[in-house]
């Protein structure tokens, strides 16, 4: 087992506090609902509610792969934006060289974007 130096930044207490408050709010709400809310069980009450219309068929129907394609392309560009972040913070220190580096990086993405548009991958019939 390799020994790992563990020295976290204590500024993270604020973040932990926020996570804790968010979790506590959810748990509190659920607890209040369980205690204060009325409980009615029955055939009609336990049925899935679908805007007043009776539920039809199954929720798990296969749908167009287009949705998946849009989602996966979103993830790729999402990661690109994450790479922009450390560059933007150091924009002044990195100077022109940094700009050229980032232009090259974004250029590849733009090339990919051109390919996506050219192939009509984002078109909906």
């Amino acid at each position, binding site marked *: 087992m390799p*020994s790992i*130096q563990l020295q976290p930044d204590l500024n993270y207490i604020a973040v932990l506090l926020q996570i804790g408050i968010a979790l506590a709010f959810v748990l509190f709400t659920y607890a209040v609902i369980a205690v204060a809310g009325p409980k009615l069980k029955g055939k009609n009450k336990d049925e899935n509610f679908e805007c007043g219309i009776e539920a039809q068929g199954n929720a798990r129907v296969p749908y167009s792969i287009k949705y998946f394609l849009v*989602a996966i392309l979103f993830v790729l560009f*999402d990661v690109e934006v*994450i790479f922009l972040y*450390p560059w933007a913070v150091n924009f002044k220190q*990195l100077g022109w060289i940094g700009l050229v580096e980032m232009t090259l990086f974004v250029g590849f993405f733009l090339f990919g974007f051109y390919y996506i548009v050219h192939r009509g991958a984002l078109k909906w019939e």
Partner: protein
Amino acid sequence: MEILFYLLAIVAIASALGVVLSKNPVYSVLSLICTFFAIAAQYILLNAQFLAAVHIIVYAGAIMVLFLFVIMLLNLNILVETQRFTTARLTAAFTGGLLCLVLIAALRSAGDIKAANPANAKIGLIENLGMTLFNQYLLPFEVSSLLFLAAMVGAVVLAKKEIA
């Protein structure tokens, strides 16, 4: 802090086992999200704060949505008794074992792993990360854009084949 490390490691391994062992694929995805959060907490312990935030945003956010998409696309609701392909299982166990072997070998040869600069808790913050990324690791950064390009082309080609 050592206790926190072991606690997070146990959570990560337990939820990773939950991914493999649960019958419902949606529960598998939820367990995987739990694993990712435990790993993100490990990143924070290693002073890699930006990486931890990105890990949660990208993995627990975007990639898990993709996994759910795949589960919906597979239409697993019709519970077909899937054939237990012994050859597929053997291959999976063999390749998984090989990966495990490589990881163990890499960890053993790495020797004593230390944080890059344990005295500096700000090493993983976005300024330092950016300076390192755009100076020392510039080539891998630029090459990664090629990887993204390949991923984009691959996704479009595979999806278009389905449409046509």
